[in-house]
């Protein structure tokens, strides 16, 4: 039964086109994610696997515990390169040659820009070039200091005292000095995955939208409901087919994407904290790059599972694929319109909408706290718990709802 239910879904011309589109998106996402360049000694850009290897080798030279000594060395190296004749030249090719030497420390330089910034929300790309000296001992403390200053000034009304204390504690509890490594593979994989998963959720929605309504659209419901299992196992086969379709396609997609991107760019730095990358420097969650990526994958799966489940429920309730297929579109695009309403409560709600699951990498950076059970939590654990629970309810609801339709 499940086999035939899945066959009904994918044997349609529209289903095949949707799967083709998904494969095309996967190919484009993989291509964009691994399109990393390396500037060679002549100042020219190189692309491809060899370029990745060169960049990796350059950054690997600086891998290790990011202590005062390594920071000071990286800072001095940046100064040396920036004051080299190539860097000071008016000629772009000469500048590119200087940049070529900078690539090994580029990520550490970005972290310096973050740590020694003027404010918590500011970022100056050239800050490391302007600084004449840094007190490397302040590198990690600056992160906490900037947060504290921000909470006392710009964000003083955004958080309660308890929330402020909780955030500061989270920052202070980060194990420092942390290990730094080349993390390009993880970062790029996280960067391009949301685009893929957002399209996947819409295509999955399209595929599963017809699981229940197809009986009515093809006028086959009379034979279906008049059969021995038409109100029991055959309905549960539809629910299972939806679950399997979503699970199978999502993990095949996520698996292919992750395997390709990480194999191409390298999976080094899985145990580095997310704060070791510029994008995660301000993150208050204590996660490694590998853990963060697993979270991104799980969030995407949960998002697909929930939105597809909702799509199927609408399909079962309305008997219309058109109404059902609007669910994932609405879930992805509606929050963008709602975000125009600037209100603290609205912002807290928006971060808990299912579209945030599809971009868990960004959600990790949101500073929204929720008091639950006497404790403060970030949005990420709440999203995972909330949508797991809702998904667990949604699928049995489809069964009940569709069975109800059989009796008039």
């Amino acid at each position, binding site marked *: 039964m499940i086999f035939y239910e899945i066959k009904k879904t994918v044997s349609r011309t529209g289903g095949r086109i949707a799967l083709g589109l998904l494969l095309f998106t996967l190919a484009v996402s993989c291509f964009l994610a691994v399109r990393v360049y390396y500037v060679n000694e002549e100042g020219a850009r190189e692309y491809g696997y060899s370029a990745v290897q060169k960049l990796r080798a350059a950054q690997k030279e600086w891998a290790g515990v990011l202590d005062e000594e390594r920071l000071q060395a990286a800072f001095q190296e940046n100064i040396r390169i920036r004051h080299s004749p190539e860097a000071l030249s008016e000629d772009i090719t000469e500048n590119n040659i200087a940049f070529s030497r900078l690539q090994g420390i580029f990520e550490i330089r970005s972290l310096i820009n973050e740590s020694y910034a003027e404010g918590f929300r500011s970022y100056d790309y050239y800050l490391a070039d302007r600084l004449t000296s840094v007190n490397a001992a302040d590198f990690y403390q600056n992160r906490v200091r900037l947060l504290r200053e921000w909470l006392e000034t710009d964000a003083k009304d955004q958080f309660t005292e308890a929330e402020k204390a909780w955030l500061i504690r989270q920052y202070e509890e980060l194990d420092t000095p942390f290990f730094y490594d080349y993390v390009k593979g993880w970062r790029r994989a996280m960067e391009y995955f949301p685009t893929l998963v957002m399209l996947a959720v819409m295509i999955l929605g399209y595929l599963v939208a017809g699981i229940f309504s197809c009986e009515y659209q093809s006028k086959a419901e009379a034979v279906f409901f*008049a059969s021995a299992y038409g109100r*029991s196992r055959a309905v549960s086969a539809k629910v299972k087919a939806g679950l399997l379709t979503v699970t199978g396609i999502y993990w095949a997609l996520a698996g292919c994407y992750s395997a390709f991107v990480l194999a191409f760019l390298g999976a080094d730095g899985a145990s580095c904290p997310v704060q070791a990358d510029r994008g995660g420097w301000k993150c208050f969650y204590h996660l490694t790059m590998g853990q963060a990526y697993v979270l991104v994958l799980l969030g995407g799966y949960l998002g697909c599972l929930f939105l597809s489940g909702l799509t199927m429920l609408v399909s079962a309730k309305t008997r219309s694929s058109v109404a059902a297929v609007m669910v994932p579109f609405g879930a992805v695009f509606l929050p963008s319109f709602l975000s125009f309403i600037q209100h603290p409560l609205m912002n807290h709600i928006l971060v808990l909408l299912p579209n945030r699951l599809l971009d868990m990498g960004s959600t990790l950076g949101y500073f929204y706290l929720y008091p639950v059970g006497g404790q403060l939590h970030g949005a990420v654990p709440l999203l995972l718990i909330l949508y797991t629970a809702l998904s667990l309810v949604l699928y049995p609801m489809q069964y009940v709802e569709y069975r109800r339709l059989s009796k008039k």
Partner: protein
Amino acid sequence: MLLEVTELTKAFRDTMAVDHISCTLGNGVYGLLGVNGAGKTTFMRMLCTLLLPDSGAIRWEGSDIFSMGGAYRKLLGYLPQDFGYYPDFTIQDYLLYIASIKGLRPAYAKKHAEQLLQQVGLWDIRKQKMKKLSGGMKRRAGIAQAMLNDPQILILDEPTAGLDPRERIRFRNLISEIADKRLVLLSTHIVSDIEYIAGEILLMKDGKLTLTGTTQELTASMPEQVWRCTVQREQLDHYLQHYQVSNIRNTADGVELRILSASCPMAEAVPEPATLEDVFLYHFGEKAGADHDIL
């Protein structure tokens, strides 16, 4: 094995679709005859547990069919009037899927589907997609799906609608072949479809069973006589206005009419034995001609 229907009633808003129907059906072929809108489909959908009655009961071997649920539907084969299918499935896939939701074991389903495909003449095109089949082929696939579980109760709602004469004859023969040792209820508004194969005919009008019996019983019960006479063309309107005319045929001498009348319509009129078509016309009057393919 008896299917007992007692005071069955179903209304849709102000329309009484099925109005206190009672009957008992055993093995054999039953023809449910009535014009469009007589309530045939509503009655059959209730027999298939697809509609809940407002009042009354349907019992199979003494048990309420709605309480029996899946156990009752295991005995049931149903071909709806508006027969739907999955357009991208092949005929074979379609039958195997229906077999699975009917609870047939895969090995048995495969074997039985093969037999049925051969019986309905679709074996050679079993790999063809359903959407590419002609109307007649789809109906044959429909009867095959209804027969998959070797049902004790086979309900066929307007199975010959839209078929050409050759397909209709083929279909009638097919139903006669499979009708052995089971209850077959066949609804139609085409008299000739059931005249040949139905053992008993149920005449349904405005939601009620107005008459039941064999063809002979029904024709014998008709209080009016059937007359054949030839009139001049200019007289035709007069006879159409004053009598129920079941047939008009142009001849060299004028127009030959088949008239239903208790009294002799004209001196030259010759009495004729009544047919089921005459009974149908008698009971349904003008409504009987509402559909061009009615007789």
